[in-house]
């Protein structure tokens, strides 16, 4: 029984954090949001060189053979810096779902995205990515961009993806008599789905921690009625509630990383979505009007959080899934 990150895991987080922080990630996010992708690809390459897309790949295939705990660590950091790009899709889902040469590409830093309609109807940054995939009838296909749509978070450049001609990647014949699992992916892909939900949860956690940090700093600088607004109980208690919500979201994320099941990642996603939502609402409220501007950096996280709340399974989906699991196992 040791439910704490190891010093290696903490070192990995702080190295990744330092690498991203020194790359002006907010500027990268802003550029990506208006279609200037060069800084985004540069940052993608640097993060890939640190091994993030190789974490879940076995050593025999050139991967790092790390655990889902390291994956969660990495996504907490990615969330903290609102890094753009289809990281959940590449490093969590596809790194597990693909094999052979396709997986090799992911390890080497190819930017790939995918959609799993209807649960995940849009592929993030599909037009920008070098590879596109789509799951249809539970099976993975190579995909082509059908059309693009605009996200509430402009740094998530969404597209619908349709299967490419002869794009089916699995030769297995689907058993039409078996009901489709609620994940929308066939059982062999379930592990990939679980990792994507875990990564989304961890990214929400990191984004929310950042909003809390920046809000705590801001309320101590901002003065009204002759004192810092952070000295008012109305502000302090709201921020305390965010601290508490995040402190109880984190163990669900790392608990799910230690024992990655559908049930565990659903619980993590429910709590992370709720805690991050609270962080975003409180963060905006304590910033006041400045927080409502596009120019102020807080906007990056407020919009990212709202987008991620419904990504890789909405809260309603995960509640329903978890409830069914809990009732089934009684």
């Amino acid at each position, binding site marked *: 029984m040791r439910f704490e990150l190891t010093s290696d895991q903490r070192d990995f987080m702080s190295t990744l954090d330092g690498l991203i922080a020194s790359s002006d990630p907010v500027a990268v996010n802003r550029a990506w949001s208006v279609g200037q992708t060069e800084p985004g690809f540069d940052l993608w390459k640097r993060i890939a060189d640190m091994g993030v897309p190789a974490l879940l790949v076995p050593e025999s295939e050139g991967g790092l053979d790390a655990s889902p705990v390291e994956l969660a660590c990495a996504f907490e950091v990615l969330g903290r810096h609102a890094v753009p790009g289809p990281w959940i899709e590449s490093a969590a889902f596809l790194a597990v779902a693909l094999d052979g040469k396709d997986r090799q590409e992911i390890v080497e830093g190819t930017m790939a995205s995918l959609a799993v309609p209807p649960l995940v109807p849009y592929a993030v940054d599909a037009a920008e990515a070098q590879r596109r995939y789509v799951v249809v009838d539970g099976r993975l296909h190579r995909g082509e961009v059908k059309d693009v749509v605009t996200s509430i978070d402009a740094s998530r450049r969404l597209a619908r993806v349709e299967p490419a001609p002869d794009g089916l990647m699995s030769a297995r014949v689907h058993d039409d008599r078996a009901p489709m699992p609620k994940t929308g992916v066939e059982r062999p892909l379930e592990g990939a789905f679980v990792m994507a939900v875990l990564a989304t949860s961890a990214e929400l956690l990191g984004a929310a921690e950042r909003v809390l940090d920046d809000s705590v700093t801001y309320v101590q600088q901002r003065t009204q009625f002759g004192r810092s607004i952070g000295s008012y109980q109305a502000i302090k208690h709201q921020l305390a509630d965010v601290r508490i919500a995040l402190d109880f979201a984190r163990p669900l994320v790392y608990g799910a990383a230690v024992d990655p099941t559908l049930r565990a990642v659903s619980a993590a996603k429910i709590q992370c979505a709720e805690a991050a939502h609270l962080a975003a609402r409180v963060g905006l409220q304590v910033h006041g009007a400045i927080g409502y501007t596009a120019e102020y950096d807080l906007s990056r996280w407020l919009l990212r959080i709202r987008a991620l709340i419904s990504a890789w399974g909405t809260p309603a989906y995960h*509640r329903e899934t978890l409830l069914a699991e809990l009732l089934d196992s009684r």
Partner: protein
Amino acid sequence: MNLDLSPEEEAFRDEARAWLSANVPREPLPSMDTADGFEAHQAWERKLADARYSVVSWPEEFGGREASLVEWVIFEEEYYRAGAPGRVSQNGIFLLAPIIFDHGTDDQQRRWLPSMATGETIWAQAWSEPEAGSDLASLRSTARRVVGGWRLNGQKTWSSRAAYAHMGFGLFRSDPEAERHRGLTYFCFPLDADGVTVRPIAQLDGEAGFAEIFFDDVFVPDEDVLGEPGDGWRVAMSTAGNERGLSLRSPGRFCAAADRLLDLYSTVLEPVERTAKSADVVDAWVRAEAYRLYTWGTVTRLADGGDMGAAGSVNKVWWSELDVALHETALDLLGPDAEVESPWTDGYLFSLSGPIYAGTNEIQRNIVAERILGLPREPRG
């Protein structure tokens, strides 16, 4: 990072589970805040003690098993999973005992701990006063130096278990010149001592779960002072940390309640109630699970030599609000039967006290904001 139990810990769990399943009373005991129920709960404590399960983490010489922190959490999980009775000895074994171990003399440990472990002596806490609640340091009850000891005067209130308990513990102002946290002394005293008057107060459920205690020149000998005279605040704060932190509210209690909530949900046939409350049922389970995992993180940090610090306040807000939400959900699922007396109404009324006792949740949020987030301190009057 892992959540695995060692073979020894698994053996400990299996043994506790087997004993509890064979010994937990089939029918719930009457309320511990009635004369009959108090006795029944004392008898249960005796039974636990005979099997050395009443104070598993204590040293063997005082009735414990020297269980590790991990084993203590395991025991609590099994205890509540088995639906075992509430602990009438709770204030003594969880709040006072850690102080006696840290600050008590050998003589005090020998005199007080064994009968606390068996449930023969039940202890009541005497913290709050009519004018000193959240602002505990403003307390006014006094201790006057006399030959061989002290004379206590004043009034305590909201003293849990005091209606039927045998002994009390609390802070008194021993230096009339000193202010607030200074000049306080920690006393232990029999509740049937000359000059002590206990007036039970009926709680929301109508039972005398707490009481007022009046002190009229009550003599307490020097050997019943805990820690040094004048050092009472520092001594007491280790209890406050315990009460808010890990000890009083083990995760097992909430995990077991969340499981019972799922059982209840699966029996509810009314589609309106099912649809309206399904999200709340899941959320109660998720929050209990979060609390369980969070506790393993705390246990790891404590085992590494860390302390609870202000994290106890994070803990307290979480479990107390979870407890209320969980019971509200259960009552909502019961539909029009919600108002009919049941274990759920009992649990609901009990849960309502959680956000108030052991430091209100407003005080806890101040602590989280000031000591963890580093925001400016509240102005003190």
